[in-house]
């Protein structure tokens, strides 16, 4: 069901997100937005407690990972978005979203009447997928505003202040992490979705999706 380009970009994105989020947590810890830091053991690339260096500040390892993985994330994301839009895949799978459709999907879900047809997303799923794509765009935009508040000052203005951009960047991360938790949990509940995203040999075909046929 999933074309090769979608399967590749999906897993590359998964890896890049893990590096970006884990290293981002370590960078956050150096100057927390509020009275909380991420446990160092779950951060990525610069942990002073379990790490090598004798210097107090260990964020540079995390920064190196963050600013390396950002290229992977952005280039891979652009390939994915371009393909999704140009091929019509996004429109086919994620649209339309209607209030009634969302209501009935929530209604079914609350009664554990889960439709396990891979390749056909209910309206709540569509909403979540489009939502996380928007968060993906916003997390990159706020990231660019944090990286280059002078060179990209027009973009930075959208976030009012420098800390405003940090807050948006942080809240996007929270939204993406919540999405990932639901996404992975549901995938584990219906393992054939994972097989489909790896091998792409699910019995459904695009033809069947188009005609609304269920396997």
């Amino acid at each position, binding site marked *: 069901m999933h074309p090769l380009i979608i399967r590749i970009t999906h*897993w*590359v994105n*998964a*890896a*890049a*997100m*893990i*590096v970006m989020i*884990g290293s981002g947590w370590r*960078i*956050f810890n*150096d*100057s927390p937005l509020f009275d909380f830091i991420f446990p160092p*053991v779950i951060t*990525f*690339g*610069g*942990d002073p407690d*379990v*790490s*090598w*260096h004798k*210097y107090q500040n260990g*964020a*540079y*390892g995390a*920064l*190196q*990972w963050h*600013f*390396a993985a950002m*290229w992977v994330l952005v280039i891979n994301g652009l390939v994915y978005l371009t393909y999704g839009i140009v091929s019509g895949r996004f429109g086919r799978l994620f649209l339309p979203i209607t209030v009634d459709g969302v209501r009935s999907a929530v209604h079914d879900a609350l009664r554990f009447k889960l439709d396990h047809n891979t390749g056909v997303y209910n309206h709540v799923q569509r909403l979540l997928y489009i939502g996380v794509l928007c968060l993906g765009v916003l997390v990159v935009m706020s990231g660019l505003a944090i*990286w*280059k*508040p*002078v*060179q990209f*000052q027009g973009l930075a203005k959208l976030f009012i202040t*420098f*800390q405003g951009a*940090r807050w948006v960047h942080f809240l996007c991360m929270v939204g993406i992490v919540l999405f990932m938790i639901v996404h*992975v949990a549901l995938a584990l509940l219906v393992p054939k979705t*994972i097989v489909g995203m790896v091998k792409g040999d699910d019995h459904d075909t695009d033809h069947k999706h188009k005609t609304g046929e269920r396997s």
Partner: protein
Amino acid sequence: MAEKTPSPSMMRSQRPIDRSILVENRALLRSIERRTLLRGGISLGALTMLTGCDITNKDAVQGVLSRMSLWNDRVQAFLFSPTRLAPEFPASAVLKPPRWNAFIPRDQVPDVDGATWRLELAGRITDKRPLTLSDINAMPHVTQRTRHVCVEGWDYIGEWTGVPLRHLLERVGADLTASYVAFRCADTYTGGIDMPTALHPQTQLTTKYAGQTLDKAFGFPIRLKAATKLGFKQPKQIVAIEVTNTRPGGYWEDRGFNWFSGI
């Protein structure tokens, strides 16, 4: 840990950056490897990431990260505009006193006697006679109210008054086609910036903050203020400047922070 080795120039970092990073990061990568095992258990994505990439080859991983950092330097130099100014803010926005941060505790900041202080000049400069504080004070000053951004993530609006670095470089006959300007400080800090940033209108050798002579902890007698750089690229208590074509290291840069660190 690399030992300090004599450098061709006293201005330059005393430790060769590449070697120290390779040596210092062995243990880092060992710990990453440990965590990767844990993470791999909870993440399908991490497995994909490691496919075809031997994470146990620690120097290779750090090599990739270091090369990516060098690539990011080039991208940032490309993005840098010599004429684009950092936004300025009203006087009411200025933080007094400013937020303090340094590589040493505040009580270890050395005293500098303004009367005996000299600014040494080295490298590709015609007139290398050391400058006194009176010489600096006699030069034209400009004021900027701009945002100071720390690599840690905090920021504040400050007001800095000082001599445009471009003015000083022209005055002493510096080779403005050279690539870098390096700094050495009374508190042993070192650093350096690219020439385009050195010539930017909002790059100055600061003598005053919010109208007052700099406190020693904020860089008396002079500090670098560059509105297009992160805070750690703006050394305090400067005692020597070198114009050079050899890329200078720096205290934090040698430890792995991105060299260009423009904002």
